[in-house]
């Protein structure tokens, strides 16, 4: 082997407390919440309720999946999510009459994706700070969407597509299937493809990634385009299943998505993260919402509990990271 004496004792990564925490924290948190739930309420461990839990956040969960790529690639966060959700929803319902539901939905997706692409160009290619860029585009797009409906509400016409969106397959609602489907595509995209590796590299060290022939601008831009698309998808699905849409439809979704990603343990600094863990984060936030109602807490307490969990999870993670000497 090597004549130079190894100064480092062999170190098995998976056995440090920090690594243990980051691999086990999500399953444990979910377990704890499930235990609390089943102790507190007899209705918790029913198929119906568990479906509800999954169903509750699967629409906004789609956005969290996209947001994972944004954060991993060092793009901080996409605050224009509510605007893209509204765009997806309003365009779909607005165009439904003239072009039919299917095409209208595609139109909605397209417009929201365009919003994402604009973000991508501003952030990836012009290198504008993501917080500011998405604040700006969000403001513009939301304004446009309100202009579009002249301030009000758009109703859907009954259609096969909306019936399908509201239905269940094998007893599981279509929303959940879509969420699972997207997660199953995006997880390997991050963990197993070149694009995923690029995302991690760009978030880890932008300059070095650029100097390693990684298409840095494209990678960063793509994360935002993808999030725009998924926000649009979320909007389209909500519009079709609710039968109506208003510009406020996605209000607060950016925070829910960020919270889910962060609870999932993806670093806001970029450079690490996993879609699977975000799925865990989505589950945890959904469980919290479910438990608050089952336990009869006032719903205003949601923010308090979610915030405390974010602080706890990230704080402990940061503690272990520091102990491991990796800042």
């Amino acid at each position, binding site marked *: 082997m090597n004549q130079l004496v190894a100064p480092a004792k062999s170190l098995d990564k998976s056995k440090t407390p920090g690594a243990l925490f980051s691999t086990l924290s999500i399953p444990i948190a979910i377990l704890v919440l499930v235990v609390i739930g089943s102790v507190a*309420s007899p*209705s*918790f461990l*029913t198929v*119906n*309720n568990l479906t*509800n839990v999954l*169903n*509750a*956040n699967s*629409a906004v969960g789609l956005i969290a999946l996209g947001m994972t790529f944004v954060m991993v690639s060092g793009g901080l966060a996409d605050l224009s999510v509510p605007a893209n959700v509204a765009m997806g929803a309003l365009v779909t319902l607005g165009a439904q009459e003239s072009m039919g539901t299917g095409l209208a939905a595609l139109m909605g997706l397209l417009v929201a994706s365009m919003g994402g692409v604009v973000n991508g160009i501003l952030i990836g290619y012009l290198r504008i700070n993501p917080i500011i860029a998405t604040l700006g585009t969000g403001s513009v797009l939301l304004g446009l969407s*309100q202009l579009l*409906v*002249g*301030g*009000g*509400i758009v*109703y859907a016409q009954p259609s096969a597509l909306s019936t399908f969106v*509201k239905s269940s397959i094998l007893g599981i*609602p279509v929303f959940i299937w879509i969420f699972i489907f997207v997660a199953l595509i995006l997880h390997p995209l991050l963990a197993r493809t070149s694009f995923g590796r690029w995302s991690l590299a760009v978030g880890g060290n932008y300059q070095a990634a650029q100097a390693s022939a990684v298409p840095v601008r494209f990678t960063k831009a793509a994360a935002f385009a993808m999030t725009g698309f998924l926000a649009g998808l979320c909007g389209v699905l*909500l519009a079709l*299943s*609710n*039968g*109506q849409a*208003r*510009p*406020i*439809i996605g*209000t607060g979704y950016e925070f829910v998505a960020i919270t889910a990603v962060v609870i999932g343990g993806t670093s806001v600094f970029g450079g690490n993260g996993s879609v699977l863990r975000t799925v865990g984060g989505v589950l945890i936030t959904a469980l919290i*919402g*479910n438990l608050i*109602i*089952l336990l*009869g807490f*006032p*719903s*205003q307490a949601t923010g308090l509990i979610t915030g405390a969990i974010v602080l706890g999870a990230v704080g402990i993670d940061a503690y272990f990271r520091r102990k491991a000497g990796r800042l």
Partner: protein
Amino acid sequence: ADSGTDSASGDAGSVEGKSICYVTLANSHPYVTPANEGAQAAADAAGVELTIVSEEFSAQTGAEQLNSCVSRGVDGILLWPADENSYLPGLLKAEQAGIPVVAIDTRAGDESMELIQSFAGADKYDQGKISAQQLDGALDSTGGIVVIAGQAGNGTEIARSGGFLDELESMGSGLEILATVNADFDQQKALVASRDLITKFGDQIKGVYAQDDTMAKGFLQALEESGLDFVPVVVGINGEAGAFDNIREGKQFSTILQPPFRNGELAIETLISVMKGETVPEMVPLENTIVDIDNVDDLEPAL
């Protein structure tokens, strides 16, 4: 403030060319937007110049806009209070400047109302009361109900909750509130919360008070999904088209219809009367029409 009531009473009868500042709740909202349009139409008809500024649901923004309307020295102010209290200082200033103020749609607090010449709109507090009566009557004053409230702290939510709770109490109703959730006037949020409520309480839910029809719709969606076949009494507010359908289908018990366009017209007309120096009643009511299976086919949805 050389304009204001003095000059208004000086050449009573004509308000042509006078200016009105209208602090509205929002620019883009299913109820507020048509109300704004009604106000504009009434102002145009009277030849009054109307400036609409939107507080975007924030009483603080509204209070500042009110101040700024006063300092512009307009001839009349139409105010959509987003909460009960925040406008008091601005109203005091308006009074000092001699600018008449009329409130639209939502009442401000009692102290504020003393500085407001008139109120034109459906009484939301009253809507809460009516909802309580509807539920109590339909359920014979027994059984559990859930309340799906609007955005916490929002003026409409406060009035509709307040009227509802006060009325239940004053009626000595036997209804038991199982749970109250805030779903922010949002169908999706109501849907998610209702799923959990249905899981928890099942058919203990005899009645539902949804503070608007979109949230009632969310509840009904959750109920449908759950596959449970009990039919609670669902009471909504606003008179949306969707609610009309649900009432026809027997899914929803009732809603309360208040026509927004008319509300706007009425408010401006009232304000113009005040500016002309006419005496107006303290409240110019916009009828709260209860819509249920009996009259649903005779009425037009508000939005």
